[in-house]
């Protein structure tokens, strides 16, 4: 836009509202989520009353969602570097090296509030948003995962929410053609009024062709591409930063509608343009749309930006500057191009039938200047929107520690066989088939391990390498002890990756908590982060991207603290990998790790006592390292192909899974002893959730060598039995269960709930 000067004297530009807009006052600022001190800060920064558009900019950029004002100082505690890390947190997604000049790019994000209000569109647009975070960095998306937390199965809204969310995730991912390969799903009454929908996307790119968001080059054109802007989801970012009340569904403005078809075209068009060298910087328009994308790009690049809003493609009449800047219309991207490359880029986007408009230019002012209808409607220092946004040290108190729960404090079932069937069929452990069969998990032709195992495996196209992917968290543990819970969530993803034979590379996270202005919630947040940090540090498993979702409360009832972790691992040779299903009769069955019968915060205790109780199982990170390393080594050497890690539901769940995932084989086992070789109570041995354990099967003639390898690696191990040809789970002195009965129990819950 040659007629636009790239140098403006910000403070001297007359800045004016559109005449019909309301005057900005402290009250209006409060309605925009800015408290009195924050509004004073705006006044001081500008030295005048902001225009409505400027108020809008501050309100979204200083919202919790965009500014991380409660979490920033704590997120710094997470380890984010390592030899494998190409890009840690701070960009649209994290980037790790996977060898051969290739990189995996991934991130997880929440779409909790919109999904509660409009489950289909809320979940769908969550998938769309996280995909854009990944392909904006130059990656072709190759996998999606989702972590879902719903209310109690019998809560009035649950069925409707499950149905809409699952359909929305499928509707978007299936259409875009990226396989949804894994995730997790839980049900708990603490999510009754505030479900969690966390979506993770993973992409692949050449390590030397990664695109970043820092704008550079004064005078370079700022380009808008994708769908047109409408009045969708104005104030989505502030909505994601406020508590719910009963009438929010009524008051809130429209949630966004996703268009996966346009997203698919946008992916192809962006990747086509990225194959040229026309792009200087690129960023998707996510929460707070044009505002945050332009402010962040220019802010990171240390330049200024001037936008002529009359050039923004709109799909509704008479949109104001305020509306255009705050719209959260989907499927849009902002780019800075090299000068003179506009026509080349335009041709590509027009071929894909997408909008393309040069809407501004970079300046050297360090300010964001917005022009609309011949008026300068905003002119603010960029730093004040980004780096200098509020940053709070909120008061936090640690959670009350819970006492250990001894096995004799938890009633043992009279019929242990029935207890196993109940556990395998319980809402938290029942098969998720009803969900993942609605997701296209095989499109792209590289899905090597489909949903249902410990980690999904997606082949790196055209190679014999694979990425292993998993998403995990145990909110019960986080509630009982945030620090141990944070550690455990990291360790569980690490274990799931190890169980398929993948070397864990890095994690992404999505930290879902209640209202951070309550010291006990802030205490959970800080505790979980510190636990995560310790585990990531010890396991050499850095956090490379993530997202924080606070204010997940309704009527003062907070969700369980839910730091969802998304783990990514690398399998260098796909010929050597493992899965949970029994593959042969006559294999020796080993249990790795220590079994102490820890029932505290376990699913079994919650069922038997009717409430969560006791301290969660501690995680011994040193043992994790040794056990995970051994399992990976044995898999990589081609000596081990049947592995399942133990988590919710303990040994009972693991034994059942080995059979359910197998081809009709059975198990003949006895219960393990405690580390001192003493017998444990049956319910503690079966359902205790001691950490750092794996169940493995391998041909009996290798049993001795395997036991030896374990001893050498200082991994406690006990041979507990054998695989057999008959479809029966026989646990000596406890119960004998038919595979058909296990399957019926396991498959019943979701189809019945959703019928």
């Amino acid at each position, binding site marked *: 836009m040659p007629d636009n000067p790239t140098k403006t004297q910000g403070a001297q530009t007359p800045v004016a509202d559109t005449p019909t807009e309301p005057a900005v006052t402290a009250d209006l600022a409060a309605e925009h989520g800015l408290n009195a001190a924050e509004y004073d800060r705006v006044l001081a920064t500008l030295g005048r009353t902001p225009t409505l558009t400027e108020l809008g900019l501050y309100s979204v950029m200083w919202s919790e969602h965009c500014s991380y004002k409660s979490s920033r100082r704590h997120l710094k505690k997470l380890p984010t570097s390592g030899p494998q890390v190409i890009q840690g947190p701070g960009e649209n997604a994290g980037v790790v090296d996977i060898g051969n000049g290739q990189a995996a790019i991934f991130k997880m994000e929440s779409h909790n509030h919109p999904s509660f209000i409009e489950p289909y*569109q809320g979940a769908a647009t969550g998938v769309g948003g996280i995909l854009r975070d990944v392909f904006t960095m130059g990656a072709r998306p190759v996998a999606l995962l989702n972590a879902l937390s719903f209310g109690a199965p019998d809560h009035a809204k649950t069925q409707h929410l499950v149905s809409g969310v699952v359909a929305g995730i499928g509707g978007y991912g299936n259409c875009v053609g990226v396989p949804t390969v894994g995730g997790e799903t839980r049900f708990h009454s603490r999510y009754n009024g505030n479900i969690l929908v966390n979506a993770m996307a993973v992409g692949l790119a050449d390590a030397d062709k990664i695109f970043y968001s820092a704008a550079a080059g004064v005078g370079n054109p700022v380009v808008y591409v994708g769908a047109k802007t*409408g009045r969708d989801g104005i104030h989505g970012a502030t909505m994601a930063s406020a508590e719910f009340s009963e009438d929010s569904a009524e008051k809130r403005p429209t949630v966004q509608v996703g268009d996966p078809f346009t997203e698919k075209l946008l992916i192809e068009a962006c990747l086509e343009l990225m194959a040229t060298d026309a792009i200087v910087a690129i960023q998707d328009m996510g929460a707070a749309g044009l505002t945050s994308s332009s402010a962040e790009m220019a802010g990171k690049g240390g330049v200024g930006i001037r936008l002529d809003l009359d050039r923004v493609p709109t799909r509704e009449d008479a949109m104001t500057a305020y509306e255009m800047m705050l719209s959260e219309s989907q499927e849009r991207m902002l780019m800075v191009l090299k000068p003179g490359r506009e026509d080349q880029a335009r041709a590509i986007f027009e071929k894909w039938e997408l909008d393309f408009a040069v809407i501004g230019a970079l300046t050297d002012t360090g300010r964001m200047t917005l022009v609309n209808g011949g008026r300068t409607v905003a002119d603010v220092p960029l730093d004040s929107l980004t780096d200098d946004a509020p940053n709070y040290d909120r008061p936090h108190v640690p959670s009350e520690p819970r006492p250990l729960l001894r096995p004799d404090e938890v009633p043992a079932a009279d019929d242990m066989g029935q207890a196993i069937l109940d556990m395998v069929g319980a809402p938290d452990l029942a098969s998720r088939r009803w969900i993942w069969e609605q997701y296209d998990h095989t499109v792209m032709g590289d899905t090597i391990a489909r949903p249902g195992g410990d980690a999904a495996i997606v082949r790196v196209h055209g190679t014999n390498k694979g990425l292993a992917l998993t998403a995990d968290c145990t909110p019960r543990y986080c509630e009982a002890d945030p620090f141990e819970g944070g550690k455990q969530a990291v360790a569980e993803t690490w274990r799931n990756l190890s169980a398929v034979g993948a070397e864990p590379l890095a994690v992404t996270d999505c930290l879902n908590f209640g209202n951070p202005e309550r010291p006990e919630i802030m205490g959970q947040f800080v505790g979980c982060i510190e636990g995560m940090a310790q585990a990531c540090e010890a396991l050499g498993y850095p956090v490379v991207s993530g997202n924080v979702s606070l204010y997940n409360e309704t009527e003062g009832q907070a969700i369980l603290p839910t730091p969802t972790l998304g783990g990514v691992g690398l399998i260098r040779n796909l010929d050597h990998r493992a899965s949970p299903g029994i593959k042969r009769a006559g294999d020796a069955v080993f249990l790795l790790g220590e079994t102490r019968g820890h029932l505290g915060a376990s699913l079994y205790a919650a069922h038997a006592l009717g409430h969560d109780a006791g301290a969660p199982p501690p995680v011994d990170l040193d043992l994790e390292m040794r056990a995970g390393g051994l399992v990976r080594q044995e898999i990589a050497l081609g000596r081990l192909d049947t592995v399942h890690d133990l988590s919710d539901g303990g040994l009972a769940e693991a034994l059942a899974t080995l059979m359910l995932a197998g081809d009709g084989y059975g198990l003949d086992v006895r219960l393990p002893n405690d580390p001192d070789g003493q017998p444990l109570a049956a319910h503690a041995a079966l359902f205790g959730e001691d950490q750092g354990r794996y169940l493995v099967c391998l041909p009996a003639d290798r049993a001795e060598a395997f036991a030896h390898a374990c001893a050498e690696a200082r991994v406690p191990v006990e041979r507990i039995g054998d695989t057999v040809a008959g479809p029966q789970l026989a646990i000596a002195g406890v119960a004998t269960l038919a595979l058909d009965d296990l399957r019926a129990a396991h498959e019943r819950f979701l189809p019945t709930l959703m019928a």
Partner: protein
Amino acid sequence: MKARVHITLKPGVLDPEGKAIGRGLAALGYDGVGEVRQGKVVELDLADTEPQAARDRVDAMCRDLLANTVIERYEIELI
């Protein structure tokens, strides 16, 4: 008695389907077609015999299930 419920997206809500249909018509050479919006119709056979009661009940069904008033609006027609 029969009820017909027309469910359409609220004005201003993105209608990707309508947009695609519009493009499809244009590609087939139909010009002069402006905005295209698409909606749903649900037809219900009702046991009710009293129109006002029937209308109220269908209205409740719309709010409970048939429409999502966050993005959609509906119109009830008794026939």
